[in-house]
C-alpha cells in the first residue's frame, strides 16, 4: 500500500510537471502571441513593449521564465497579465462555486442514474426499459449549452421560477444558494444520468448470469433480495470507479461550459475568461489545478476499488 502510494505520488508530480510545461509551451512557442504586446495594448510603442517585457520578466530565457512562473504559482504570488489580480486568490474564490456545482450535480446524477439503471435492468425489454434507454441516449447526446438555454428560457424568463444564474454563498443563505444552483445542477447531471444508467444496466444484465446469483436464487431468496443485495451491489463497483474519474474531471475543468452559461464565477469561468484574453498565468495555474484533481481522483479510485473488491491487489501492475 505504502509503496503503491509513493509510486503514484511520484507519477503524479511527473505528470503535473509535463502538463505545466506543455501549457507554458502552447503560449510561448506559438508565434505572434507575444504576451508583452497583449499587455501593453494594440498601439503600444516598441519601447513600452520592451518595458513591459522587463517588468514581467519576459525578456529572460524561456526555461527561466517557466521556473519563475512555477515558483510564483506555488508561493501564491502569481499575478494575472491582464487584470493584475492575484491568480491564486481568484482560484481559491472560485473553488467553493465549482465544488458546490459539481457536488450537487453528482448527488442528482448518482441518484437518478442508479434508479434508472436499476429499473431498466429489472424490466429488461419492456416499455420502461425502452423508454429509459431512449431518454438516456437523448441525455448523452444533448449539448450542455442547449439544455442550459432551454432551461434558462423556460424557467427564468417565461415562468420566472428560478433566478438567472449568479451565485450566492452557502454560508450567506443556504436556500438562495440552492435556488441559484438548481438549474445548473440539472444541466450538468443530465448527461451523466444517461451514461450511468446505461452502464449500470449493462453491468446488472451481465451479473444476472453469474453463478452467485443462481446460488442466491437456489437458497430461496426473494427476487427483490437477489437483485438488490447481490446483483446491484456487485454491479455498483464499476460505477464507483466511473464516478471518481468523472468527478475529478468535472472539478478539473469539464464544468467550465455550465459555469459560463449560468454566469457562475467558478474556476472554469475564470479559465474561459483568461483564455479569451490570452492571459497565460491563470491558464497555467488552472490547468495544473485541474490536472491535479484528475490525477488525484485516479489514485483515490484505485484505492477505493481495491477496498471494494478484495480480489484486486494494489501495486501489482497489470503489465
Amino acid at each position: 500500500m505504502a509503496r503503491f502510494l509513493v509510486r503514484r505520488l511520484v507519477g503524479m508530480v511527473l505528470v503535473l510537471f509535463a502538463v505545466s510545461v506543455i501549457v507554458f509551451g502552447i503560449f510561448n512557442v506559438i508565434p505572434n502571441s507575444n504576451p508583452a504586446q497583449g499587455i501593453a495594448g494594440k498601439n503600444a510603442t516598441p519601447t513600452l513593449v520592451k518595458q513591459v517585457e522587463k517588468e514581467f520578466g519576459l525578456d529572460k530565457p524561456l526555461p527561466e521564465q517557466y521556473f519563475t512562473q512555477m515558483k510564483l504559482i506555488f508561493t501564491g504570488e502569481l499575478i494575472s497579465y491582464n487584470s493584475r489580480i492575484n491568480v491564486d486568490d481568484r482560484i481559491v474564490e472560485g473553488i467553493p462555486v465549482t465544488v458546490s456545482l459539481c457536488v450537487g450535480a453528482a448527488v442528482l446524477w448518482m441518484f437518478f442514474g442508479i434508479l434508472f439503471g436499476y429499473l431498466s435492468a429489472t424490466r429488461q425489454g419492456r416499455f420502461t426499459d425502452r423508454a429509459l434507454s431512449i431518454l438516456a441516449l437523448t441525455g448523452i447526446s444533448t449539448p450542455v449549452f442547449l439544455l442550459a438555454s432551454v432551461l434558462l428560457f423556460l424557467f427564468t424568463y417565461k415562468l420566472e421560477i428560478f433566478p438567472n444564474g449568479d451565485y450566492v454563498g452557502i454560508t450567506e443563505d443556504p436556500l438562495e444558494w440552492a435556488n441559484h444552483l438548481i438549474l445548473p445542477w440539472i444541466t450538468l447531471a443530465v448527461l451523466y444520468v444517461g451514461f450511468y444508467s446505461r452502464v449500470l444496466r449493462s453491468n446488472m444484465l451481465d451479473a444476472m448470469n453469474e453463478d452467485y446469483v443462481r446460488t442466491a436464487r437456489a437458497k430461496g431468496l426473494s427476487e427483490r433480495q437477489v437483485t438488490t443485495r447481490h446483483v446491484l451491489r456487485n454491479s455498483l463497483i464499476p460505477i464507483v470507479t466511473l464516478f471518481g474519474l468523472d468527478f475529478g474531471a468535472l472539478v478539473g475543468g469539464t464544468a467550465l461550459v455550465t459555469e459560463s452559461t449560468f454566469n457562475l464565477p467558478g474556476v472554469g469561468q475564470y479559465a474561459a475568461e483568461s483564455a479569451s484574453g490570452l492571459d497565460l498565468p491563470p491558464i497555467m495555474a488552472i490547468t495544473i489545478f485541474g490536472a491535479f484533481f484528475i490525477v488525484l481522483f485516479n489514485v483515490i479510485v484505485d484505492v477505493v476499488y481495491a477496498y471494494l473488491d478484495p480480489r484486486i491487489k494494489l501495486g501489482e501492475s497489470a503489465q
Partner: protein
Amino acid sequence: MASEPYAEPGLPGGNPEAGFPPAPAGVRTAGRSPWYLAYRRLLRNRVALFFLAVFVLIVVFVLAAPLWASDVAHTGPNKTHTLEKIEVNGEIKEVVEPSGKPIGPVWFGADGKFFLGADGHLGRDEMVRLMYGGRTSLEIALAAALITTLLAVVLGLMAGFYGGRIDTIISRVMDVLWSFPVVLLGIALGTALAVGGLKIGPLELSGTSLWIPILIIGVVYTPYMSRPIRGEVLSLRKKEFVEAAVAQGAGPLRIMFVELLPNLLSTIVVFFFLNVANSMLLESMLSFLGAGVQPPNSSWGTMISDGFDLLYSSPVLTIIPGVMILLTILSLNVFGDGLRDALDPKSKVRLEAHLGKAEPEGTAV
C-alpha cells in the same frame, strides 16, 4: 427491410447440392463471413436503421446548402440585410427592427427567403447559415475523428505490439494527455492558435483555418481510443496466429498491419462513430466559448454562441442549431450502439471508451 433473410429464392439454406430443403432461419451461418452476419443483424435493428436515415438526411441537408442559398434564399451565409425590408404574405416587414430584434421564422411567407428568420442585428438568413454552419460542423467532426482514429490505431498497435520501452513512452505521453482537462486544453490551444496561426516547417495555417480546431480535437481524443486498442493488441498478440506469422518470418510491419489490424476492425468502426459524435460536441463547446471556429467561418457552435446573447428575445437562434447538434449526435450514438451490437454483441467498447484508463492499476488474483 428484407423480411426473412434466409428464405429468399436463390439463396437456399442448407446444402443446395444435396437437395435438402432450406434450413430454418439462422442456421445458414456457416460459411458466411462475420461481416455479412453483422450486416444481417444490423438490418434487423430498425431503431438503428431509422437513426442512420436521420443522419443521412442531415448530411443531405447540409450538402444542399449552395442550392438553397442560390435558388431559394438568393443570399449567402455572410450577406447582411440589416436595413432591408421583405414582403411576407403581402405585408412589408423589416428584416431587423430598429430595436435590434431580428425577424422570426417566416417559413415560405417570402418564397423561402428568411425561412427561419434572420440571425441578429446583421440580418443574415438563418436557414442559409444553418446549412453552411452544419457543413463546417460535420467537416470538422469527420476530419477530427479520422485523425483520432489514425493516431490511436498506429500508437495503440505500436505500444501493444512492441511493448517494452516503446510501450512505456507511448503510454506515458498518453497519460499526460489524458490528465489534461480536455476542454481546458482545447481552449488554451484554440485561443493561442487563433491569434497566431500555426507554422510547422512548410505547413502554415492561418488563425482562422478550420484545420486548427480539427487538429486540436483530433489529438485531444486520441488517448481515449489508443488505450483500448493497445489492450486489445496485448491480448491478440498472444494468440497462435501471431506466433504462426512470426514463425513464417513476417516482419513487425506485416504482423501489425496485415495480421493484427483486421482483427481490430470492428472496434475501430464502432469507435469511429463515437469519435465523430464526441468531436462534434467538443467543436461546438469550443466554438461556443470562442476558441473553435473563427469568423468568417461559422458552425453550429458559433451560431449558438451568437444566438445566446439574444436568448430571451429570439430563442430560436439558440435552439435551432442546438437541436441540429442534438439530432446529429443522437443519430450517431444510436446507430453506433446498433453497429456495436451487430458486430460484437458481447463487446463493451463504449464503456471502455469512456473509462479510458479506468482499468484499475492492480490485477485480479
